[in-house]
C-alpha cells in the first residue's frame, strides 16, 4: 500500500518530470543537461530561501520577510565592501549573523508575545526593506575582485555542462537541510511542533527553542540567499528580490508541504523550485507566451495543491472519526 503522506511529493516529482519531458518534446534544444543546470543557476537563491521557508511552514508558521532580507543583505554587503572597503571574508559572516539575529528577534516576538507570525514577519519585511533605503536609495555596484571572481566562475562538469558556485552552495544547503530535518532532534521537533504545539509541550519538547530556532534558520537562509543573490547580481539594491517571499511560499506548497504545518519535505521544496524554473524556461522557449503566465500557472498550481491537501486531510479526519 502506498503511504498517503507521500502523495503530494510524488505528484510534485511527477509534475516536474512531465514538464521536463513536455518541454523536451516540444522545443528543440530544450533537453540538455545545461538547461537543467541553468534552472539551478538562475534559482539558486530561491532554493536556499525555500529551504528556510520549508522549516518555518512545517512548524506551522510563515515568514514574509525573506525577500526583504535578501535585499537588505545585498545592500549591507555592497555598502560594507564598496564604501567601507571591508574584505568579503569579513562581510559574509557579518551579514549571516545579521540574518540570524533578525530571525531570532521575529521568532522571539512570535513565541513570547503570541503575535501571529504573519504580522510579525510583515513588520520584519517592512523593516528590512526600509533599512535598505536608509543605507542607500540607489544601486551600489560591486566591483570587488573576489565577488566578481565567484560570480564568473563556471564549474565545468564532465560532459561539458557547467554550474556556478552559487549552485554548489545551494545544493549543500539542501543536503544539509534534509539531514537536519530528518536526522536531528531539532528537525524532528519542528515536525512535532507543526503537528501539535500542545502535544509537543506535553511531551516535554523544547517548544520555545524550536519555534524561535525555525525563524533563525529562515533568517540565516534568507541572508545566505542574499549572499548568493549578491554574487548573482553583483550589486546591492533596495528593490532586489521583490516578491520572492511569495515565490518561496508557492514553491514550498507546490513541493507538497502542508501550509497548516506538520507535513512536508525539503526535497519537495527542491522540486517545487525546479517546477517554478521549468515553467519560466518553457515560457521563454515558447516565445509567444509572456512572462506573466508564470504567475498565473503558479497560482493555478497553488490552487490545485492546496485543494489536494485539503481533500487528503479531509479524508484523513473522516477515517479517524
Amino acid at each position, binding site marked *: 500500500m502506498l503511504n498517503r503522506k507521500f502523495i503530494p511529493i510524488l505528484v510534485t516529482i511527477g509534475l516536474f518530470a512531465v514538464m521536463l519531458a513536455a518541454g523536451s518534446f516540444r522545443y528543440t534544444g530544450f533537453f540538455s543537461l545545461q538547461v537543467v543546470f541553468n534552472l539551478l543557476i538562475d534559482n539558486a537563491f530561491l532554493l536556499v530561501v525555500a529551504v528556510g521557508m520549508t522549516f518555518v511552514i512545517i512548524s506551522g508558521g510563515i515568514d514574509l520577510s525573506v525577500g526583504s532580507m535578501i535585499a537588505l543583505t545585498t545592500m549591507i554587503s555592497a555598502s560594507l565592501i564598496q564604501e567601507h572597503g571591508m574584505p568579503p571574508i569579513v562581510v559574509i559572516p557579518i551579514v549571516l549573523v545579521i540574518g540570524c539575529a533578525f530571525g531570532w528577534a521575529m521568532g522571539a516576538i512570535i513565541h513570547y508575545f503570541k503575535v501571529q507570525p504573519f504580522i510579525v514577519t510583515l513588520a520584519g519585511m517592512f523593516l528590512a526593506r526600509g533599512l535598505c533605503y536608509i543605507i542607500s536609495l540607489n544601486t551600489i555596484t560591486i566591483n570587488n575582485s573576489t565577488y566578481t571572481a565567484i560570480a564568473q566562475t563556471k564549474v565545468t562538469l564532465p560532459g561539458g555542462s557547467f554550474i556556478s558556485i552559487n549552485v554548489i552552495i545551494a545544493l549543500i544547503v539542501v543536503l544539509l537541510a534534509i539531514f537536519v530535518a530528518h*536526522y536531528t*532532534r531539532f528537525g524532528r521537533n519542528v515536525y512535532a511542533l507543526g503537528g501539535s504545539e500542545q502535544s509537543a509541550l506535553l511531551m*516535554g*519538547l523544547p517548544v520555545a527553542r524550536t519555534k524561535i530556532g525555525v525563524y533563525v534558520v529562515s533568517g540565516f537562509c534568507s541572508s545566505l540567499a542574499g549572499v548568493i543573490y549578491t554574487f548573482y547580481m553583483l550589486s546591492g539594491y533596495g528593490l532586489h528580490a521583490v516578491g520572492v517571499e511569495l515565490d518561496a511560499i508557492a514553491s514550498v506548497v507546490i513541493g507538497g508541504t502542508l501550509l497548516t504545518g506538520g507535513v512536508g519535505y525539503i526535497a519537495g521544496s527542491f522540486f517545487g523550485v525546479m517546477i517554478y524554473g521549468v515553467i519560466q524556461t518553457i515560457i521563454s522557449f515558447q516565445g509567444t507566451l509572456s512572462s506573466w503566465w508564470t504567475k498565473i500557472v503558479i497560482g493555478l498550481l497553488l490552487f490545485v495543491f492546496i485543494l489536494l491537501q485539503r481533500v487528503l486531510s479531509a479524508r484523513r479526519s473522516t477515517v*479517524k472519526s
Partner: protein
Amino acid sequence: MINMIDRQPILQMSGIYKSFPGVRALKGVDFRLFAGEVHALMGENGAGKSTLIKTLTGVYSVDEGKVLLDGKAIRPQSPQDAQEVGISTVYQEVNLCPNLTVAENIYIGREPRRFGIIQWKEMNKNASALLSERLSLHIDVSLPLQSYSVAIQQLIAIARALSISAKVLILDEPTSSLDRNEVQQLFAIMRKLKNEGLAILFVTHFLDQVYEISDRITILRNGEFVGESLADNLPRIELVSRMIGKELNLLEEMPKSQHEEHAESDDIWVEASNLGRTGAIEPFNLVIRRGEVVGLAGLLGSGRTEIARLFFGADRADQGKLKFAKSSEAIRSPRDAISQGIGFCPENRKIEGIIDDLSVRENIILALQATRGWFRTINRKRQDEIAEQYIGTLNINPPNPEHLVKNLSGGNQQKVILARWLLMQPELLILDEPTRGIDVGAKAEIQKLVMSLSKRGTSVLFISSELEEVLRVSGRIAVLRDRRLVKEIEGQDISPHHVMQAIAGG
C-alpha cells in the same frame, strides 16, 4: 487477595488544597495508589478530579498538602518533571503528534542517537519490540500515527509512558471514544500492566467499566474527599449516591416532582424514533409532549448532552429521525431546529452560548435577528425594550443592556442565553445544565421559570447534574447510563431511589 496491611502505597497525596481565583477546587483531598492496582477516581462535574490529576502531573502547583511517591516528597513543576519521576498521563484527546511516525511518538525527545544523528533503524526496532512485548501490539511503527485508529493511538501513548519507565500511569477518560472491542483490548492491557506491578489511576464516566476493571475506588465531590473503598465492597447505588452527594435515606425525603399540579396533555409535540449517533449516543426513542418537562438524568458523560444536541441539530444524527407533530421536515442544522420552534441553552456557554465581544442586548436579540435575516431589523428602541424587559424578569446584573457579556458572571451569562431563547417563544426549550455555577437564589428562579414555561404550554428538555433539581421540575425522567437511554420514569413512579437505581444499573 492482596494483603493490605503490610503494603505501602506507591503514591500518597494528603491534605491537598488548590484554589483558583474565585474557586476552591480542592479542599484537603487525600488520595493513595498502590502498585499493581487499578484505582478509579470518581466524581461529577466540579468534583475536582481533573484538578487533582493536574496537580499530580505538574500542570498546576499545589497550594498546600503533601505528595509522596515511593515515600519521597515530590513537587512536579511541569508534565516533564512528573514524567521524570515516573508519573505519566494518557489523555482522552491523544496528546501525541499525528504527523509523526509511531516510533517517533514513543521516543521523540529521547531518540537513540550516534554523534547527534538519529538512529531510525534502532528506534523503529525498539518501538516494535516495546509495542509487541508489553502491549501485544504488532503494527508498522514507521507509519504516521494518524494512520491508526484512536484506540491504537491511545495504546501508543501508553507505550510512550511505559518507555519513560512509569511507576504511575494515569488514564484520563481513555475509553470515551472507543468501541466495545477496543475497550476490551485496552482492559486486557491494563490487567497485564497491573500484574507487572504498575499503579494505574483510571478516570471514566462509565460505571460498568469501573466495576469491570477497578480494584479500588475513590470518590470526590465538590473538591472534597468523600471516601475510598475496594470496588467489591461498594454497591453501585451507593457509589452513585455518594457521587451525587445524597445519602440514600436523605434522598427519600427529597421533594417529589411538583408536576402533578397541572393537567397532563397527551398532545405529542415531537418524537425521536431510533435516533442515534455513532460514538455519541446509542439509538433511543423519546416522546416529548406539549407543555411537558422531560428531565434527563444520568452521570456526566452518560449521553445527556448528546441527546440535546441531536434534538437541536447541533450534531447530525446518523440513524433514526425526529418526527414533529405539525410538520414532516427533517432537522439538519440548528437553523432548522429553530424554525421548528426549538431553543437550546448549551452546557458549555462560554464556547457555544455567548458571543463575548457583544453586549447583553445584542446577545439577547441575536437568535431572533438571525431568523429575521439581514434587512428586517429590530429597531433600536424595540431592542432596548426587549433587553430591559429580560434584564428585569431574569434579574440580570449589572442591569445595563450595553454591558459586554464577557464581563458578566457565569450565572448572568446563563440568564442572557436564556433570555435569547425566551424571546423566541420556543415550543421546546432545551436546557443543558442551566444552573451550573449559579448561586442558590438564581437556581430557584430558573427552576420556577421552567415550571411557568411548562404551564404556558412550552415543552422543556431539562438536563442537570443535580438529581434533586431534575426530580423537582420534571414530569417525566429519562435515565441514561453509559450512552444509552435505559429507563423512563413517569409521574408517581418518580422517586430518588428509582432514578438512582436506574442510573446505577447492574
